[in-house]
């Protein structure tokens, strides 16, 4: 079972683990903010998430351990920016199941929205990953690609061989999103 737990509901040790993952060089190298985030700064920011209906941040937990994070935030009307990150040793099943379940949830809640990914231009793995989810590049800067996916595109992608094989496989781990 993979649990998505709201950042505001995490205990201190889970926050320490989450921040350590977020500050690891592997993650920072392709992030918008490349500087490490301090402990106090992190806690203050988490406080700002309480009662904030415009964004949701969740730790990905397996067997009680934080292994990554997913988030969404309203950017402009009709658009929701999402993101996902994992520890390098996370299993591909874990990553695939989490991404599919999270996107499903976002489109269930806002079927008319467009999901937006902002992906570092040198992060070829993430670009491939987004493409397999059905995202298409719609803009780029020197450092980042903006990729988008709407609900019709998502439904169509889920009927393709790759996502269909994953979704229908009994080994696909269940994902539970907690408020």
């Amino acid at each position: 079972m993979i649990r998505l737990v709201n950042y505001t509901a995490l205990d201190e040790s889970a926050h320490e683990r989450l921040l350590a993952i977020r500050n690891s060089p592997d993650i920072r190298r392709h992030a918008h903010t490349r500087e490490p985030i301090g402990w106090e700064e992190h806690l203050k920011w988490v406080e700002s998430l309480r009662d904030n209906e415009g964004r949701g941040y969740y730790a990905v937990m397996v067997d009680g351990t934080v292994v990554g994070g997913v988030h969404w935030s309203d950017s402009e009307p009709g658009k929701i920016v999402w993101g996902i990150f994992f520890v390098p040793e996370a299993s591909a099943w874990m990553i695939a199941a989490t991404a599919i379940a999270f996107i499903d949830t976002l489109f269930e809640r806002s079927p008319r929205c467009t999901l937006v990914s902002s992906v570092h231009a040198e992060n070829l793995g993430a670009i491939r990953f987004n493409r397999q989810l059905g995202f298409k590049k719609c803009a780029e800067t020197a450092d980042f690609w903006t990729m988008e996916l709407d609900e019709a595109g998502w439904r169509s992608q889920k009927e393709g061989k790759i996502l269909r094989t994953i979704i229908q496989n009994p080994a696909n781990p269940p994902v539970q999103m907690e408020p």
Partner: protein
Amino acid sequence: MNDTILSIIFAALADLNDELDEPALEHPTPQTRLFGNGGALDSLSLVSLIADVEEKVFEAFGKTVLLADDKAMSQRVSPFRDVETLAAYIEKLLNG
């Protein structure tokens, strides 16, 4: 190396590449990188490949192998680095 296992992996890669259209997978060899540094697959396509290979292994050998084990799926120490390591891993599971 078991030629049947290699054939299974190549067939699964060919099926997968119908959708991926990835040049690196057009003419795979035992050295073709799959996952991790320099690999042609992302997490989603790796999982799809594995599910397909498991099915084809069962059809060919009548044995169920579980390649999608959490430990094996690790990105850093992984039997999915290239075709050769994947074939060796399958052979080990079949003989185990």
